[in-house]
Structure formats: C-alpha cells, structure tokens
C-alpha cells in the first residue's frame, strides 16, 4: 500500500469521512463501559475513599494531553520534512482536543488535590510542566490562527509543536527526577500499583479517550481541508454539495 496516496488532501478527506464515525461509535461504547466500571464496579480506595474515582478521568486525560502533543510534533516533523500539507492540517486539527484534555487533567487534579493533599494547586514540577503544556497548546492555536499566510502559519505552528515536545518527557518523568507533591506514576511498564478492576476501568477510559480524540480530529481535519483547499475544483464541488460557498 502506498501511504503517500493519503497525503493528497482529497483522498484523505474521504478517508477521514469514513473513519470518523467509526471511531466516534467506538469512543461512545468504550466510554459507557468505562464509566460503568469506574463508578459501579471498581472498589472504594482504602485510604482516599470515593474521591479517588477522579483517576478514571484524570489519568486518561493526562495521558491523552501528552500523546496528542507528541502526535502534533510527529505530524509537524513529517510536514516540514516531506512538505505534505495534510500533515500540518492534522497537527492543527489535534491541538484543540489536546488543550481540552490538558485542561481536564489540571482541573480534575485540582478537585482531587483539595480533599487529599489539602490544596488545589502547588507549584511542583509535575503540575507546573503540565500547565506549561496547556500554554503550549494555546500558543500553537493562537499562532497558527494569527498568521495570515496559511503556509507560514503551518511552519510556525510546526516549530512550536517540535520545540514544545521537549516538555513531554519532563512532564512524564518529573515525578521521578525531582521530589514532587504529585505521587509517582501508578502504572508503568515495570510496576502496576492499582488493583485489577481499577486498572481495567482506567485502561478502557484511556482507550475511549483515544477513540474520541481520533474521531474529533478527523472531523476537524475535514473542515480544515475544505477551508484550505477551497480554491481547488473538488473542494469547491464538495462545499457546494454541502450547501456552502467556496
């Protein structure tokens, strides 16, 4: 299979149109199962009580916020290297979802921090670097929208995505490298410190977050493709078919 075929905006537009609903359905089903396990099956935590259940949102959201940024950096590198426009569109389409998950992680973390630590916020390395990630997302969105020349905007956004990617390992390893208020990771390749049903709930919620992110990014990339390719013949036809004006 020739992957370069999908670097054509037109081909990718129709592929995204086919895949998006499928991922949307997967996301909805997984989220329903995941939330059921999270709230009805998983046991109460011995130390924290019920408040721990925020991890079913918090951990998948935090993972997703990091994964999406890495995906943006990946597409940006591909875009800069191969000059494929669709790569930049993907990067741009992912940014708002990444920002959403990043905000969710910070927000649920604050709500959990108050009853457990005794504070909503502390300037420790984990939280500060995660806040920096939110600002990087905002920076990417603002910069790509602020520059008039679309191709220059793409390049500027790609550079922010690549430079900011350095922050991702800092977020992930911050709890290892420095002492922080935030606890170490409960799940990694060498050790799992949560009980089975909790783990399953968390993993299903994480998969739901993946499917949701893919679905919305594909929907968003379709409108970005139409907007940016509106001068081409096929996009003009497509826009007219949807009742819009090119």
């Amino acid at each position, binding site marked *: 299979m020739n992957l370069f075929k999908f670097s054509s905006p037109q081909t990718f537009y129709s592929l995204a149109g086919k895949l998006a609903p499928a991922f949307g359905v997967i996301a909805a089903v997984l989220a329903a199962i995941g939330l059921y396990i999270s709230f009805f099956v998983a*046991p*109460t*935590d*011995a*130390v*924290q009580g019920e408040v*721990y259940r925020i*991890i079913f949102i918090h951990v998948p959201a935090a993972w997703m916020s990091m994964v999406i940024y890495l995906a943006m950096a990946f597409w940006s*590198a591909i875009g*800069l*290297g*191969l*000059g494929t426009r669709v790569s930049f569109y993907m990067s741009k389409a992912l940014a708002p979802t990444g920002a959403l998950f990043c905000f969710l992680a910070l927000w649920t973390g604050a709500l959990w921090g108050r*009853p*457990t*630590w*005794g*504070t909503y916020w*502390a*300037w*420790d*390395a984990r939280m500060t670097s995660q806040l920096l990630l939110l600002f990087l997302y905002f920076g990417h969105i603002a910069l790509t929208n602020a520059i008039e020349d679309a191709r220059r905007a793409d390049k500027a956004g790609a550079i922010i995505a*690549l*430079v900011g*990617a*350095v922050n991702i390992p*800092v977020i992930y390893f911050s709890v290892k*490298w*420095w*002492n*922080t*208020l935030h*606890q*170490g*990771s*409960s799940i990694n390749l060498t050790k799992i*410190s*949560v*009980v089975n049903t*909790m783990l399953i709930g968390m993993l299903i919620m994480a998969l739901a977050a993946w499917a949701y992110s893919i679905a919305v990014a594909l929907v968003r990339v379709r409108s970005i493709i139409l907007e940016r390719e509106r001068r081409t013949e096929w996009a003009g036809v497509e826009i007219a078919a949807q009742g819009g004006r090119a």
Partner: protein
Amino acid sequence: MKARHKRFLWIGAGVALLAISATLVLNAFNDNLVFFQTPSDVVDGKVPKGRNFRIGGMVEKGSVQRAPDGLTVHFVITDTVKSIPVTYKGALPDLFKDGKGAVAQGKLDADGSFIASEVLAKHDENYMPPEAKAAVDKAREAARTMRR
C-alpha cells in the same frame, strides 16, 4: 542525499540539540526544581537560613501529638535517616496520618524544630480496596515479626 532526507536530518538535529540544551538547563536548576527538602537536607544545612521552605517525608509512627487547645499539632517528619520535629497550628488535610507522607511549609526555629504554616498530605501511587490493604498490612506485619 535527497532534499527531503536533508530536511529530516535538520529537523532531527534541531530537536536533538534542543533536548540536550533542555537537559543541561534542567540539570543546572535541579536544586530549585524540588518541591521539598528532606530532613537529611535540613540537617546537612542545605536549606536557606531564616527563609521559608518546604520539608517533606514520612510522618513518624506514633509521633503525632495534639495539644490541649485542639489546634496545635506536634509531629516528627523523617526520611528514615534523619528526623525533624514539626509544630503546626491549623487544620490538617484528611489524608494526614502517621506513617504516611506529608509536606510542610514554614521556617526552622532557633532550636532546630520546624514551625509550619501549611501542611499538605502526600499521597502515594498505591490504589486498592480496604480488604486488599488489610491483607497487605498483615503480610508486612508478619514479615516484620519473622525478621525479629
């Protein structure tokens, strides 16, 4: 070498350079990136004199004493090597318990005890239901008595 290979090389080199410089910067700021100092740091004199800082570690088992006024609490923070007595006046977070992690913010007194203005509980990465926790505690207790 094709032009696109060259471009990827530049991107790779750029990111690598950035990662190296970030590592150097983070290394240089290492001491300022920690959220709290350990009791050993305090005893070794690594903490700023007469300034506020945070001290973190385990609350020593059986060291928590509440004063008759109902607000003042005395406890000992330890990293199992060195310990520092802490005095705090105020409400403690729910997860504050002896044998668990805590972070206190405040100043060192002249006599080497720590006067805290804020105390946070530090949670660990273990999540389990009460029955599992009881089993783990029991196993740990059994292991301890065997060693003796």
